[in-house]
């Protein structure tokens, strides 16, 4: 039988790895991602950035949705909540409301974020919830075996678009900028050092930070978002890019054929916790706001 040999998950179940292979921020479970999947560098970059920032595993909560990307928390040694498809941000908001001291990182795929979960993004952003949202964008639904996602390019052929995708893809960076995220950056799985820097910076940002990470699905996308294609496309943001200038960030974000890596935009604004503290203070002082 001439069945092509395809990349595979390393194991059908999560496998406890031996204690001697244990890193501080890696869980004892071996990732179930396909060999070569861009997501491996996310796990690596994340653990390194946590180490760099000196956060303790028990003070970190990783919240994810459903998808290959959302398997992330299982592979990290921190508190984790693998929630529902698309509900990453409201759950993360709840965690943070309960305890300001926690470092809360929300993680999901492009489908999780922009299809089923799209309604929550503008609200987490405008409220400036002090969490970091990392979207692993492979332009496809990996876990359900390769259908188009809202970021799939025009012409992409998948099981649900056998006659080629005709739906205009979304532009996540523009959307996040329009939704008033106070930190917006982009990284690429094939550039792990920069990725690590970006993660560390995103986590360190006080307020809602959005990190968009381009990543190939090596199993289901052989044509569009491959390492080869992405490697040729990505570029650095211009050296003189002003990350305080919203319109400059927007303009860079429109250039989807040459995705730029780096920090597009940054601003300081009261976080949701700041607002809540203000309310509590006014309430205790008996100041109704009339």
């Amino acid at each position, binding site marked *: 039988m001439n069945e092509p040999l395809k990349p595979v998950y390393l194991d059908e179940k999560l496998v406890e790895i031996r204690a001697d292979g244990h890193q501080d921020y890696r869980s004892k479970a071996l990732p179930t991602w396909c060999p070569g999947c861009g997501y491996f560098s996310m796990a690596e970059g994340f653990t390194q950035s946590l180490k760099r920032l000196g956060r303790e595993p028990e003070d970190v909560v990783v919240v994810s949705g459903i998808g290959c990307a959302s398997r992330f928390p299982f592979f990290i040694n921190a508190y984790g909540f693998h929630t529902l498809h698309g*509900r990453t941000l409201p759950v993360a908001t709840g965690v943070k*409301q309960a305890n300001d001291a926690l470092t809360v990182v929300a993680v999901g795929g492009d489908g999780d974020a922009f299809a089923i979960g799209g309604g929550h993004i503008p609200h987490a952003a405008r409220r400036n919830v002090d969490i970091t949202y990392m979207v692993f964008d492979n332009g496809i639904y990996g876990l359900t075996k390769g259908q188009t996602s809202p970021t799939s390019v025009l012409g992409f052929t998948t099981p649900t678009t056998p006659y080629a995708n005709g739906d205009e893809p979304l532009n996540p960076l523009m959307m996040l900028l329009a939704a008033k995220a106070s930190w917006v950056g982009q990284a690429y799985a094939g550039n792990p050092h920069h990725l690590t820097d970006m993660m560390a910076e995103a986590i360190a940002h006080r307020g809602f930070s959005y990190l968009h990470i381009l990543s190939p699905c090596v199993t289901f996308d052989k044509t569009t978002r491959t390492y080869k294609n992405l490697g040729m496309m990505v570029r650095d943001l211009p050296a003189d890019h002003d990350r305080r200038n919203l319109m400059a960030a927007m303009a860079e974000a429109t250039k989807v054929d040459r995705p730029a890596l780096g920090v597009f935009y940054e601003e300081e604004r009261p976080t949701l916790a700041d607002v809540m503290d203000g309310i509590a203070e006014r309430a205790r002082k008996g100041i109704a706001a009339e």
Partner: protein
Amino acid sequence: MTGTDVQFAICGSAGDGTIAAGDILKRTMAAMGYKVIAFDIYPAEIRGFGKCISRVRVSIEQAYSLKRRSDVFLSLNDAHAIPHVGEVRDFGAVVYDDAPIATIPEGAHISAHIRPAQLPYGASFRQISDKVTGNARARNLVALGYLAGLYGMPRDAFHKTIGRKFATKAASVTQVNVRAFDAGYDAGASVFKLDDVVMAPPPVGADGSRAQMMTGNGATVRGLLDADIDCFFGYPITPATSIMERLATDLPKRGGRMLQTEDEISAIAATIGAGYAGARAATATSGPGLALMTEMMGLGVIAEVPSVTIVSQRGGPSTGLPTKTEQSDLNLAVYGGSGDAQRIVLAPTNVEGCYRCAGIAFELAEKFQTPVIVLIDLYLSNRYETVIPPEVKPFAPKAIPDAAGRSSGPFKRFAFTDDGLSPRAIPGQNGGVHTITGLEHNELGRPADQADNHQRMSRKRHDKLLAATRHPGLTVAKRFGRTGKVDVGILGWGSTFGEILEAMYAAEREGISCSAMKVVMLSPLPVHLIEPFFDDCRIVLVPELNHEGQLAHLVSGTLGRPVVRLDRVTGAPMEVDTILAEIRRLALGPAAGNAA
């Protein structure tokens, strides 16, 4: 019911101050030490001139619902009031303004609609108001004073309430209103009373000083606060909105946080997120919102995260009848989840129960590590009852899990134990690091789909809840009336149980052998209490405000026994007479009943 038991109905538009008059009346009565039940009806989505009715039942013994027939009826606006005059009983009173503002077509004045057996009292409320305050706006207080005078109620008590009501306004406002009240009082006191309504003073020693008039929603908020809620997440929807609105004011005062989310999915998601992180967190919604929360509830079940959801039902399905009451979300509350998603569902039957269930919901959610739904309805949300709040908060404080000392080996968040309850740890705690998931998982919380694991975890999640039916301090089901074998049993839930009790006691007075049981915990069902009740009853009647007989079906399905359904979806509370008629129909007759 011995002693005073008088129901007042005040009808007019919002612009007439109808609700305000009812409010002063009920608060005064409660402060005097009477038991009070009150329910206001406002028109859908209307402000200003729509029809309002405020009904206030004042009694010495505990009453359970409004009476079908009022004893005293006050019209502040004949156009609205005329269709309702009929609700006054024979020898009851109808009070109205006898000086209409303009000439009116024949039949448009209320006096033409009073039945011969009703006693009419006309007085010139507008005119009196005009005279003593300079305009007609205080006519509602004049009319209220008239009632107080007519039935010899103490002036002072009213003055106090009026003073309290306008405490934040200029002193002159209180004065004007008191003046109007007194003028009305004098007019009422001088009338020759022809009706047979009697307002005996409350028994000596009856102390109303700690009594409060609370709605179901108000009591719910109080319960949440007394249980030290940390976080609330909500999205506006009738009739639950006022829960969020009150918490918006009260929660921050205690350092708690209220967040209006972008929708109901976010509200329950954030509630579960906060619950996971160790907070006492709650949300509140109505049927359409609960429908949206269905998927997230399932996550709470399998990931074993505590959460509390208050659901105030309104008419359904879908957007339905947003301003009418109904009990038709039982199915959704109990069965609304993919997979075997059992959780705890409580349905209090009165205002005091709202307080108790809201607070205990946190205890249950934490102890059993599961979502808890408190299911009320518009009638209960908005109805006022006298409640004496406990002096000491009656709820167990938050049991903060402690992962310390567990640092040897990975934390088994879902360890199998004898009672099915596993150790919990919350983010920030050393030694408790773990990941939870909506996937089936093993004791560590790692995804695991082996047959025996799923079988065991399913059983764990189901069986651990059974102990909830014996949770201390919570009445999960209770029988009222005659004990032992009876002819007709009436099983009920939620707001309708008040009418059931009234009907049951009335039937008993007629010599029918009967007894009633309320079911407060709808899931898991307290079979150990319900089954013996069925054993004792020849026939069981289940009156409820939905069309499919949802409690009837639930209980029949669990017990495998038949019941007689009594379903109504009129948007209004069930009438005591309807239940009574059905009890009579089912009874073998008074003799047979007594012989049992």
